[in-house]
């Protein structure tokens, strides 16, 4: 029969867990999805065996295996909450054996807050919590063995070495608990010499085992000691969550939602702007929306390398994939994979499969599809994308992208996006996404000569002028700055309200009433 106090405490804990899970599921789902996308777990014996190559195999294996279920944000929220709850319960049991009532409660609450704070950092992975839990559990088990019915059997070395083997830095936690239990008994004068030895042994082994095994595991001592890594506490990063959510909406091909999230962003930035524009381009409205977002970031002036932030590499991968440049989409995907834990990122492996399907490189595509087929969450996706088994919508999407991709061969020395856009348009001048990115980049740079040259080359000379309001406004600026005859105006400009507005603006240059026009942007921003 539970005491009323225990019922109240249990109720508070349960409510805390529900609130925490609800927070993760509603306010932090993209952080959880980021974890899932930033790794891969293959359901094969060979893959599982690779976890034995490093310490903390059990913590990492259990953590990575469960992380694949983060694909569903509710499941991810529940898993993370339970992991934190389990760590907290283990800690509470341990600390109650060391400290009196109220102190143990306060410490337990602080510990739970610390763990929750660690989960706010996108770099904290589930294996961290499993290593904490494993270390605590083995420390408690050692206490039970050493001071319980089997007290004649001193298994401290076994527990600490096992803790390192299975939970990495968890061995330090086990040793800490064992030492704390010993000190408690010293203070109560219950100690025998044997327990002194146990505590000393725990500390020495927790510090010494990583040193002894660092050669075997090919890790420097500092990394071996804290393997797989200690998480850092952080405050909730809603700005990062916002960015990730926008990228996720784009990944789900929900372009309306992407644009809406970008417009609603409390901290608009380069990434929210980028996805706003890319979604607009895919809805044939980039020129219509170019001036509607306060940050101007098309990605066409961005280059990536080993120091680029990971979301920026993702961003450039999306840009090149949508433009149709499979060479640079593959480069960004490879780069993103290389900088992921264990050099694998499931979103990029899917993307590599798509890229090779578009390129017609079936052997390479099958390589990635086979890997995905061995996962829990992407097996069905893999089958849907396997040549010969594709449903019509997938096949149509691949075919559409094929028509956009580059069929000219040039050697590129860097990621100069202008050259890439020109090559794409040389391959297919009907690639409107590439065309709009080219023309809009010219306009953001206020390079009117280049804009006019590009417009002439890919719109006028190809017989498909693009009558977008933005381009009309820009062309008026260019034409007004030259002495071209009236016929030239007729060639480019459609008579109508835009011409009238330009005439009015010419007399009121810089008037904020025209702030939605390119003329105002050209003059004032």
């Amino acid at each position, binding site marked *: 029969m539970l005491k009323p106090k225990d019922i109240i405490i249990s109720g508070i804990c349960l409510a805390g867990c529900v609130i925490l899970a609800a927070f993760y599921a509603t306010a932090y789902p993209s952080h959880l999805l980021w974890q899932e996308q930033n790794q891969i777990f*293959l359901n*094969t*014996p*060979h*893959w*599982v*065996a690779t976890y*034995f*190559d490093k310490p903390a195999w059990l913590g990492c294996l259990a953590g990575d295996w469960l992380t694949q279920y983060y694909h569903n944000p509710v499941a991810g929220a529940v898993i993370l909450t339970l992991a934190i709850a389990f760590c907290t319960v283990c800690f509470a049991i341990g600390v109650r054996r060391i400290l009196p009532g109220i102190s143990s409660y306060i410490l337990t609450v602080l510990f739970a807050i610390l763990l929750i704070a660690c989960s706010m950092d996108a770099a904290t992975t589930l294996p961290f919590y499993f290593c904490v839990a494993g270390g605590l559990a083995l420390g408690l088990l050692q206490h039970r063995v050493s001071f319980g019915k089997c007290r004649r059997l001193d298994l401290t070395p076994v527990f600490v070495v096992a803790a390192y083997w299975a939970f990495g830095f968890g061995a330090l936690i086990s040793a800490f608990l064992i030492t704390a239990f010993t000190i408690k008994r010293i203070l109560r004068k219950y100690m025998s010499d044997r327990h002194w030895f146990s505590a000393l042994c725990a500390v020495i082994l927790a510090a010494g085992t990583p040193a002894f095994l*660092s*050669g075997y595991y*090919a*890790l*420097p001592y500092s*990394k071996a000691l804290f393997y797989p890594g200690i998480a850092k506490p952080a405050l909730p990063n809603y700005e990062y969550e916002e960015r990730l959510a926008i990228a996720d909406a784009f990944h789900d091909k929900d372009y309306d939602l992407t644009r809406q999230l970008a417009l609603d962003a409390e901290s608009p930035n380069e990434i929210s702007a980028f996805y706003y524009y890319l979604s607009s381009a895919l809805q044939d409205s980039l020129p219509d929306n170019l001036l509607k977002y306060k940050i101007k970031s098309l990605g066409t002036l961005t280059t990536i*390398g*080993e120091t680029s932030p990971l979301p920026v590499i993702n961003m450039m991968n999306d840009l090149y994939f949508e433009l149709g*440049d*499979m*060479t*640079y989409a*593959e*480069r960004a995907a*490879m*780069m993103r*994979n*290389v*900088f992921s834990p264990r*050099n*694998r990122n499931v979103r990029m492996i899917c993307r590599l499969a798509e*890229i090779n399907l*578009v*390129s*017609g*490189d079936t*052997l*390479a595509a*099958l*390589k990635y599809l*086979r*890997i995905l087929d*061995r996962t829990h969450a992407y097996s069905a996706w893999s089958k849907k994308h396997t040549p010969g088994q594709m449903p019509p919508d997938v096949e149509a999407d691949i075919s559409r992208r094929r028509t956009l*991709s*580059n*069929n*000219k*061969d*040039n*050697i*590129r*020395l860097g990621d100069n996006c202008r050259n*890439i856009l020109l*090559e794409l348009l040389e391959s297919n001048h009907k690639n409107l996404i590439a065309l709009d990115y080219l023309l809009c980049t010219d306009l953001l740079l206020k390079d009117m000569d280049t804009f006019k040259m590009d417009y002439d080359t890919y719109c006028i000379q190809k017989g498909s002028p693009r009558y977008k309001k933005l381009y009309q406004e820009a062309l008026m600026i260019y034409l007004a700055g030259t002495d071209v005859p009236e016929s030239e105006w007729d060639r480019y400009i459609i008579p109508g309200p835009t011409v009238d507005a330009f005439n009015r603006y010419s007399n009121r240059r810089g008037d904020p009433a025209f702030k939605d026009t390119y003329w105002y942007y050209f003059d004032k921003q």
Partner: protein
Amino acid sequence: MYFKYLPLIILLTLLEACVPGPEDVSETDAFPDIYPDYIGVTVPCNIAPLNFLLRDSCEAVYVTAATEGFEIKSHKKGNEAIFDLTEWKNLLDKAQGKNITVSVTVLHGDDWTKYKSFDIAVSGDMIDPYLTYRLIEPDYEVFSRLRIVERNISDFSERILCDYNAVGNRCMNCHTHAPGDGDLSFLYVRGEGGGMVLNDHGNLRLLDFKTPDMVSGPVYAQFDPSGQFLVFSTNAIIPAFHSRPDKRLEVFDTKSDIFVYDLQRDAVLRSPLLADSSRLETFPTFSADGNSIYYCVADGPIRPSVIDSIHYSLCRIAFDPRQGTFGQSTDTIVKGLPGKRSVSHPRVSPDGRRLLYTVSDFGTFPIWHREADLQMVDLTTGEIDSLMIVNSPMSDTYHCWSATGRWFVFASKRDDGLYGKPYFAHVSPDGKVSKPFLLPQKSPSFYDDNLKSFNVPDLGAVPVSFSPRDVAATMAGKN
């Protein structure tokens, strides 16, 4: 090292007990669709078990491998055939100089089907049992967590020689053995504070012999047979991308020269014929007697727009190891042909009779050229073997001879066009080359899951005696 697989082995053994045996078997005339493709290959008598998987989805596989009067079997659920190491070694002992006949019977649904049996020829010529390679993603422009590994190809054990942790996650070039001496070797760590890490039978030294007239540190390097000299090229390398996605990367040199480093005298030896500013000299290697240097050369300079008109020829220059001097003229052994042939990576067989090299349509980086193939020239007759049985529609390059000259290993992208894997081919005394086979793995699905290229495979007769910790200590100046 097997203790780490213990829980899995116990689990698999328990599952193994429930595999149904073949009953009411129907036969087909087709060979099974197996991966790796071991049908009709020639293997050395000291190779690890040739485990394989079936590309068909099937419920169980029953495989027998037999030679005159001796048979072993693999009988498992799923699509993998995995042989016991001890049984396999017994089979190889009995099959030396003969064939192993492999029979594959699979369970599809409720029906067992027996495929046409195939042979594996077992050569009595042993292969050097240690293979080193660098594990790296195929996109060489960026890297992270590189590793150089030594694999014992007689079993499945492997050892890390250098790990990214030991060198601060810097770029490492591949590990190269000296001919005939497995424990004299080097690797190169790039970046600030880096240099060539020379392994002289377990004693590691960091060498930095770059001089101001060199455009870079050593890029392609080889020992001479005595182990006293290192011939190396210094290359100003430009990585570039093709806009066509199927061509991917192109890497070219804008400058390159060849030098020889005398390890005993700590001196760099030069020849104006190997450091001509108007030409690009690269891929040097010593002849088997050490009295000449083979290398590749093209006319410079190179611009990206004309990269497809650059064709390297294979040349030779005399070298006197006693005086440390070079000949006054060079010979062209295989001429680069515009639009057809650019030569790279020459390697002379240990008996000095043959030279193996890569040909591609142009340029100096065949690893991303699908048309890149191996060829072999008989140095006594000048006859060129196009090695049709060895080559594939994908890149085949980065080859290395075994100490006996009866085997060579090379990196081939034949399976997926992206990831290089080590293939071995047998060369008979009369120069006949057999169908190559892929380095066997304990788990046949290893290559399917793997996302690293096996870069520059290199054979060694003995294990090298250093570890990542030794490399780290050497880099830190503690050796």
